[in-house]
Structure formats: structure tokens, C-alpha cells
């Protein structure tokens, strides 16, 4: 019993997302037992990877007390930039990826500096950035994307290590997702991570104790920009270029992070749970599809489940935490 409590405390109310994930997978198993064969699980993880990577980036921003609404537009912009600059020429792949990385870092830096130095609320800063990116890309391309991605560019999002016994193919996207996830978790264990949480939890207290709140918050935006760049490479690689890439992703990813038990306003939640939130959302999409739920009904059901899950988590959090009993029983 104490063990269960300890585990519960460790997850800081994030248990709901793992419960939701388990339930969703259980339901998928009931509807279509064949889903749990290795190839289709790998396909699922491959298509979920971009959202998980984005969730890791968004987590840094949200836990430090901000939002990044510009990630969807940034993902779209990155894919369009890549297609236009590469234009089907293989040798340009790596240079263009470096350009994209610089662009992602630049956008994150601008978001961060406007929010911390100019004191513009991040909601407005990044909403503005969303519109700026959307408009700039339309202006630059004349309305719709042009050019073509190279085969090499598409490899990380589409292909994998083939011929693995039992599994078949291990997607590169899965390995990238695991690497990003591990990186995010490790980063949160450093001094940087603790300052980040402290900034979101109680900004004033963090400042008074000498933490460089503005610096870590700006860094969080930069990390979000980098994650959007990686997600852009994965999504572009997965499906190629289209005008609508990235549309609405910002809301899906913020939902994922909140579903993972990360409090909007910051200061609470773990990177692992945020990424599990992204996985849970992708799992719900898969479940609806496996259930052949009419397309028109899906957003409503998805919304209801998310509200229910977050409300359930909030109820659990509001109840007083079980006091460790000192006296032996």
C-alpha cells in the first residue's frame, strides 16, 4: 500500500494519463487484436513520434509558466522551407536541415526574448508568431508549397532499420522519439530543469533565490523551437509536403501536455507524462479508427474523453495527499 502511495506521489497526479493509455490500448485490443502485431505497433509509434517530440518541447515551455502556440505553424513552415530549398536535390539535405535547425532556434529565441525581455504574455507572443509564420510562408511561396523533398530527407520519418527479427522494421522515428524523450527527462533532472519548474511554480520565489528565470524561460522556447524542427523533419519525412502540414498541431500538443498532468501556468508535471499524453491522444485516434467511429463524431468523443480525464486527474490532485504515517500500525 505504501508502495502504491509512493508511486502515486512520484507521478504527481500524472497517473491518469498512464491509466488512459492503458485503457485505450485495452480497448484497441478488444476491437482489433491484430493491432498488437509488431508491424502495426511500429507503424503506430512511427506516426505518433512527431507529436511526442513536440510534446517534449512544449512541456519545457508550459512547465516554466508559458505557452508556445507557434509550434504548429513552425512545423508547417519548416516542411515548406525544406521542400523549397531542397527541391529534390539529395546533396542539399544536410545543409537544409541545418538551416531548419537555425530557423527553429531563431524562432524560439525570438519567442523567448519577446516574452521575457519585452514582458509580452507568451500567449500573445506565440499567437503573433503563428500568424507571422503562416503569413510569411504564404508570401514566400505565393500561396502554396513548391519544390520537393529528397529521399534522404524523408528517411528519418518514413524508413527504419529493416530485417530485425520478430519486429521487422524499427522506424528511425521511434529511435529519434526515444532519444528526444530520454534527453528531455535527463535535462529535467539537471539544475536547469529544477530552475525551470521553480520558475513556473513561483516566479517571485525563484527570482529572489537568485535563479535566472528569464534565461531558462527563453531556453525553454528555444527547446520548443528545436523540437518543432525535429517534428517537422519527421512529419515531412513521413508524408511529404502539403500546404496543410502542421495545421492545428499547437492545440493537439497542448492538449497532450495537459492530459499528461502538466499544469497550465507551470510548476507541475513531468516530461515523461507529457509525452505519454501525446501517445494517449494518438492512441485515441487509432482506437476511433479501429472502431470505425464516423469521422464526424470523433472530435466530440475525443473532447469528452480528454475533459473527463483531466477532470478526474484534477479531483485526485485536490484531495489531500495521504499523510505518511509515522507510528507503526
Amino acid at each position, binding site marked *: 500500500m505504501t508502495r502504491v502511495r509512493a508511486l502515486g506521489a512520484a507521478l504527481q497526479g500524472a497517473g491518469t494519463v498512464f491509466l488512459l493509455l492503458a485503457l485505450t490500448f485495452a480497448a484497441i485490443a478488444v476491437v482489433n487484436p491484430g493491432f498488437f502485431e509488431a*508491424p502495426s505497433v511500429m507503424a503506430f509509434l512511427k506516426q505518433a513520434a512527431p507529436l511526442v517530440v513536440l510534446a517534449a518541447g512544449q512541456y519545457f515551455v508550459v512547465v516554466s509558466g508559458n505557452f508556445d502556440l507557434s509550434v504548429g505553424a513552425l512545423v508547417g513552415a519548416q516542411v515548406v522551407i525544406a521542400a523549397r530549398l531542397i527541391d529534390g536535390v539529395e546533396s542539399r539535405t544536410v545543409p537544409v536541415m541545418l538551416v531548419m535547425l537555425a530557423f527553429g532556434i531563431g524562432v524560439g529565441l525570438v519567442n523567448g526574448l519577446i516574452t521575457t525581455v519585452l514582458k509580452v504574455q507568451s500567449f500573445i507572443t506565440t499567437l503573433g508568431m503563428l500568424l507571422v509564420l503562416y503569413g510569411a510562408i504564404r508570401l514566400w511561396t505565393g500561396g502554396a508549397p513548391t519544390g520537393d523533398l529528397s529521399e534522404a530527407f524523408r528517411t528519418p520519418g518514413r524508413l527504419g532499420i529493416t530485417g530485425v527479427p520478430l519486429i521487422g522494421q524499427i522506424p528511425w522515428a521511434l529511435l529519434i522519439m526515444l532519444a528526444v524523450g530520454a534527453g528531455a527527462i535527463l535535462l529535467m533532472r539537471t539544475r536547469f530543469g529544477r530552475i525551470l519548474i521553480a520558475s513556473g511554480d513561483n516566479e517571485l520565489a525563484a527570482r529572489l533565490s537568485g535563479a535566472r528565470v528569464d534565461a531558462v524561460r527563453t531556453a525553454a522556447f528555444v527547446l520548443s523551437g528545436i523540437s518543432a524542427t525535429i517534428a517537422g523533419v519527421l512529419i515531412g519525412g513521413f508524408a511529404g*509536403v502539403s500546404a496543410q502540414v502542421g495545421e492545428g498541431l499547437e492545440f493537439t500538443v497542448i492538449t497532450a501536455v495537459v492530459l499528461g498532468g502538466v499544469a497550465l501556468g507551470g510548476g507541475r508535471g513531468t516530461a515523461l507524462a507529457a509525452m505519454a499524453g501525446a501517445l494517449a491522444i494518438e492512441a485515441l485516434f487509432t482506437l476511433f479508427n479501429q472502431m470505425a467511429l*464516423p469521422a464526424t463524431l470523433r472530435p466530440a468523443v475525443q473532447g469528452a474523453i480528454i475533459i473527463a480525464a483531466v477532470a478526474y486527474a484534477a479531483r485526485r490532485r485536490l484531495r489531500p495527499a495521504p499523510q505518511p504515517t509515522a507510528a507503526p500500525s
Partner: protein
Amino acid sequence: MQTTRLALAAAAALGLLLATGCTTDTPTEPADDATTEGSSDEWFVQAEYDAQLAQRDIAPEGDPATPWLQAIEPEWVDTGEFTREGGDATVCFSNASVSNPWRVTGWITMQEQVKVLQEAGEIGEFRTSDAGDDDDQQISDIQAFVDSGECDALIISPSTTATLTPAVETACASGIPVIVFDRGVNTDCATTFIHPIGGYAYGADAAEFLVENLEPGSKVLALRILPGVDVLEHRWAAAQQIFGDSELEVLGDEFTGGDAAEIKNIVTQYLQRGDVDGIWMDAGDGAVAAVEAFEDAGKPYPVMAGEDELSFLRKWDETGMTAIAPVYSNFQWRTPVLAATMILRGEQVPAEWILPQEPITEADLDDYLARNADMPSLHYAKFGGEDLPGFPDAWRDR
């Protein structure tokens, strides 16, 4: 305490999921039919459907080498009242948007055609506005053109049908010739309304091909961009008619927003549920992503209805799959400016200028690929600008 509650909630949630699972699982067919038929009734007009399907077999008047000047069963109207001496006319164009590759391709073609007419001295100034898919913006764009009093002819590509109707009527009332093309409006006040045959014909071309090339009992997945847009709804309504009379099983119809990643996700998930033998699309955006989903899942290629976007035509050629590319004739973007100069010369034009709309089949695939060899992948094969002086640079270096 905590664990009991957790268990209770878990049980309740699981029950809920299973309940929804069961109710939607067993009566899948009737439920699907009910929803889809509801939407098709709203958008399906039998007479219009019959007319469009018949128009596919009518030989258009005019030279087949210049399909943008051909017309199906035209009713010629006199435009003598608009005759204007002296050339160098100011032609104005209110564009709904250039927000998809189809419109971008057409817009380039139109500009190149205008250059030719400008050199010939027929058009002086070509004024344009882009409403960015915003009805209100387009209404004020049209009003501004009318108020300026400087347009000798006004071309309108409406963003939506009903909302733009009053603005088009205002333009007609100002006494200048008005040319409407692509999507229509609910008034026939325009001097000419230019459009290819239409959505029913498009959807039917695609659906008939699947019916002919698939065994009875085969499973078809329909991928749609979004609900509620008439040109797209007509395509799906026609397909439903044809699938309804066939022995094909429609697995589902999914909205993708035209997003390649979404398309690939959805197709991948359908393939996890079972085989898919055919794909019907209401527009070819992202068709390649759908094909790739089959490749990545290691499944045989489906029989496929895409569109004449080059990325799909090239994929079709590479894979040798059984496919068709229905066409919503992109060359229609040339016609309005030519019509404007005809009207200003006082020549007759068709009141409703119905352009031919023929799908690209296996037989003419190589021809269209060769003609568009230099073109980027988001270009439309039937753009009809090969004879314009700007070809190929204007379309290649967009």
C-alpha cells in the same frame, strides 16, 4: 481508498469505451449509411447529376488543340453593348485566393495569358486583388473595383457561392461586363460563367473507374478534404450514387483536410484493420501519401483515383499501379481573360461556358508526363499553358 476509487473509475471508463465500441461495431453498416446518405441528399440534385454525366460524352465545339476555348453545347449571347474601341482595356480580376497548388498553377497561367494579350495591345492594365479565402474581403475587393469606375471588364473567381452573389449582382448593375469562373454564384447576371463540367462528373469518373477495375465485393476507402464545400460535396454525392449501385463495399469516408500526414495516418490505420482494394479521393492533394501508406505497410497497390497533380502522375508511372486521374480542368484560368477581350471586341460568348473535363487515363499518362517533364511536383498536368511564351520557366520557377 485511493485504489478502490481508481479501480471503480477504471471499470466505469472501460465499460464506457466498450459500450461505445459495441454500439458502433455491430450496426456499422446502417449507421454509416445513415450519416452519409443524409449528407448526400442535401447536396445531390438528380437533374444536375444526369446533365453532367451526359456532358462528358458530348463533343465540345471548337478546336481540340485549344480546349480552353472549347465549349459544350454553348448558347451564344450577343455582347455588342460592351464593344469598346481602341484596345488597351483595363481588366480587373477579383481572385478568391491562391491557397492551394491548383489555384497557384492556374493563376500563373492566367498571368502568362494576360502578358500575351498586353503585347497584342488588347489589354492595357491588369488589376488584381486576392481575398485570401475571405468572403468579406472579396466583397470589398469587388466593390472597390466597381467604385473605381476604371475597369472595362471584371473577372471574378468567387470564394463561396451564396455570400458572393450580391457583390456579383452589384458589379453587373454597374454596366461593365462581368465574367465569373470556377465556383458559381446564384445569379446569371454575369455576361458569361466559365467552368468545367463539374463536381458530379469528376466524382463519377473516379468512382466508375474503381467499379470497372475492382472485383465485386472489393473494399474501397473514400478520402475527402472537408465537408460542406459544394464542388467537393458534388464529387462525393456522385460517387455515392455509383458505389451504391455497385457491389463494392465502401469501408468509410474520412476527412483529411488535404493534409498528407493525416491521409497517411488514416490509410495506415485502415490497412491495420484489414485490406483496402481501392482508394477514391475527392481531390488529389496528398494522393502520394495514400499510396505510400500501402508501400510502407507492405500491401499491394490499390486501384486508385487521384488527380492530375504531377506528384501523383509520377508516382502512378513509377509504380505501374492501376489508376486514373480525374481532372478539374486547370486550363479554365486562361479562358476568362480571353473571354474579356472577346466581349470587349463585341464578339459572341457562351452564356454558360462549359469547358471540357476529361480524366487522364493510362493511355495518355505518358503524353502528359512528357509534356510536363520540367514541371514541379505540385503542378497540374492539364494547365494548358504549353503554347504561351512564358513556358516553361514561369511554371517551373514558381
